[in-house]
C-alpha cells in the first residue's frame, strides 16, 4: 500500500520544498500582478504624472466620469485590457510612456502636451481598433443600447455590422482631435498658438525641440 503512494524517485525533499515555495511565490506573484494592474489602472495612479493630469481634465468633464448611472469608468477601464496577462502586457507596453515622460519632451507643459496630443489620440484609436473596442464592451452591450431617442437603439441594431465602437465614437472623453485621415497639423498648430497666445511658428519650433 505504501508503495502505491510512493513519490517518484526524482521528487526529493528538496524538490518538494521548491515546489511548495515556488507555488506559494507563484500565487503571490499572480496576486501581486492582479493588485498591481488594479492599482496602476486607477486615475489616482495615472495622474501621479502631471502630464496625465492634463489628460484627466477633459476626462473629468466627460460623461464617462460623470454618468447619470453613476458607473464611473477609470483610466484603466478603457485603456487597459481585461485579464491579468493582457493587462500586465498593456502596462508593460505603457512603460514606454513612462520612459518618454522622463526622457522625452516636457509633456507636463500644457502647450507641449497638447501639441503631441493628436499623436497620442491616433495611437489610442489604433489600439482600440486592434482590440475591436474590447474595453468599451466591458460595460456597453450593443443589444442593450437604448439611448434617449428611439432611433438610437435601431441604429445600433441595424447599422453597426462590421463596425467597432471606436469607428464612430471617437472624441468621447478627451479633447477633440480629428481623424488621422483628415488631420492637418498646420491647422492644429495654428489653433494651439491662438489658444495660448503664441507667435505664429512657435508650435513648429516647440515640436522640433
Amino acid at each position: 500500500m505504501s508503495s502505491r503512494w510512493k513519490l517518484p524517485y526524482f521528487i526529493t525533499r528538496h524538490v518538494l520544498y521548491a515546489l511548495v515555495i515556488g507555488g506559494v511565490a507563484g500565487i503571490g506573484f499572480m496576486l501581486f500582478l492582479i493588485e498591481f494592474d488594479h492599482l496602476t489602472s486607477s486615475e489616482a495612479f495615472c495622474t501621479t504624472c502631471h502630464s496625465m493630469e492634463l489628460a484627466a481634465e477633459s476626462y473629468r468633464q466627460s460623461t464617462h466620469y460623470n454618468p447619470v448611472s453613476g458607473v464611473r469608468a477609470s483610466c484603466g477601464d478603457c485603456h487597459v485590457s481585461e485579464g491579468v496577462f493582457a493587462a500586465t502586457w498593456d502596462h508593460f507596453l505603457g512603460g514606454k510612456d513612462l520612459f518618454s515622460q522622463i526622457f522625452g519632451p516636457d509633456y507636463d507643459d500644457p502647450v507641449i502636451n497638447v501639441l503631441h496630443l493628436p499623436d497620442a489620440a491616433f495611437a489610442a484609436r489604433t489600439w482600440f481598433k486592434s482590440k475591436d473596442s474590447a474595453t468599451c464592451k466591458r460595460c456597453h452591450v450593443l443589444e442593450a443600447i437604448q439611448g434617449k431617442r428611439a432611433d438610437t437603439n435601431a441604429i445600433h441594431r441595424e447599422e453597426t455590422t462590421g463596425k467597432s465602437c471606436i469607428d464612430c465614437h471617437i472624441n468621447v472623453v478627451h479633447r477633440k482631435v480629428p481623424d488621422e485621415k483628415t488631420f492637418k497639423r498646420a491647422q492644429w498648430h495654428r489653433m494651439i498658438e491662438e489658444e495660448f497666445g503664441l507667435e505664429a511658428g512657435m508650435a513648429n519650433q516647440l515640436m522640433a525641440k
Partner: protein
Amino acid sequence: MNLSLLRRLLCLALICCHPTLFAAKVTVDPNQWGDPLGKECISCHEKASPGLAQQWHKSAHAEAGVNCLDCHKASVEDNDAITHEGQVIATIVSPLDCSRCHTVEYEQQKGSVHSEAATIIENRLPALAGHVGGDAIVAAGCDQCHGSKVKLRGDGTIDPSTWPNSGIGRINPDGSKGSCSSCHGKHRFSKAQAREPSACVRCHSGPDSPDKAIYEASKHGMQFQSHRDEMALTSDSWVAGKDYVAAPTCVTCHMGAAGKLKATHDVGMRNVWSLNTPISQRQQLVVFEDGDKLELPESQTSPRRGSELTKSDGSMGKVKGVATPKRRRQAMNLVCLECHSKSFAGSFMKQFDGVIKLFNEKFGKPAKGIMQALYSEGLLTPVPFDEPIEFTYWELWHDEGARARHGAAMASANHTWWEGMYLVGRNFYARFLPQVEMVAGKETAKALIEEHVKSLDHHQWMDKPQKANPILGYDVTRQDNE
C-alpha cells in the same frame, strides 16, 4: 457700325444671352452622380435625422438619384474635410460643390451682389456690429443674412461663431462665396419654394429693406396672394408671360425668365440704382473674363472690353463686358412688358427714378456734405456712433431712406411716403439739423445749413415762415383778417 454701337450690342448680348432656362439643364453625365457609397448614408440618417432624410426623399435630387455623398463628399486635403462613418465628407456644401453639376448657376451667382454680401459690409461691421452690438450679434444677426467667413479650427470643428450659417455671401472654406441653401432650403432644394416671395423674406425684411412688406403692400403682392394657385411654382419651365401671368414674385423681376429675357442667378444684374447707399448711384456692371463682377458708378468712364481693371478684392482682372445702366433697365423692362405697355412701364420707372433723385438731391447729398464737414472740422470724433447725430444720419439713409427708395422701386405707396420719405424729412428737419447746431454751435451750424441745405430749391420753403397752412390748426382766416 461704330464702336459705341458695337459695345452696346455686346452689352445687350451679355444680358440677354445668359443661359437659356431658369433652372439650366444639368449637362453632367449621370454616371457622375449617384455614388454607391452615398446610398449607405440613407438608412442610418433616416433614423438619426429623419427630418432631413425625408426632405431629401421628396427632393428632385432623390428623384434623379443624387445622394448625400454626391454633395457632401470631400478630399482629405480639403480644409473642412472630416471623416464620417468611414467616408471623407464636408459639412458645408458650398456653391463650388453645387457647381459640380449646376455650373451655369454657379457662374451666374459668382460675383453677384448676393455672393458679395459679406464682403460688401466687411468694413462697416466693426463699427456697427462691434460698437453698437457685439460679437454675438455678428454671429446671430449680421452674418446670418450677409454670410459669415467660415472659420475652421485645428480640431476639425467649425468655429460656432461662424457656423451654422446660410448667409448668402458666406465665405466658404473652399474660397467660394455664397450659400445656395440661403434660398433653396437644405435637403429639399425645392424650386417652388425658392420662387416664393417668402424665400427672400428671411433677409429682405426689417427697417432697411422691408421688401416683404413692400411687396405685400403692392398690387403685385396682392395679385400673388389672390392667385397663387395659378403661379405654376412647381413647373420646370417658369417663364413669365408664358407659364404664368397671375403676378410677378421677387424672382420674376430680379432673376426670372420673361418672354425673350433669359433667367439669371445674378440677382443684381437688372438693378440700375444702388438703393442701400447714402446717395443712390446709377451703376454699370463690369463682368470680368473669370466671371467676377464689379459695380462701377455710371459717372466713371466705362472700361473697354479686354482692358485691365482692379477688382473688388484688389486683384487685376480682364474686362469681358460692361452692362450699362441703360441696358440693365431695358432688361428689367422686358419683364414689365409681359403685362404692361411700354409707356406704362416707362412712366412707372420715371416715378421711381424721381423718388431716387429727390432723396439724393434733397436729403442724401446735403446730409452727407454736412457730416463730412463736421468730421473734417473735428466737431465729431472719428469713431462712429458715439454721438447722437451719427445715429440720425445713419438711419436717414440706411433705414427710412432705403425704405423710401425700395418702396418706390416696388410700388408700395405707403413705404415710399409714410414709412419712407416722410420719416426722412421729419428726421432731417426735426432731428438732424437741430443736432448739427448742437454739435457745431449756432454760427457754424448756420453757415453749414446755408451752404448745404438752404442753397437748394428743395428747402426754400424754410425761409418763408409766413406761408401758412391749416394742416396743423393754424387759423388762416383770422390771420388774413388781422
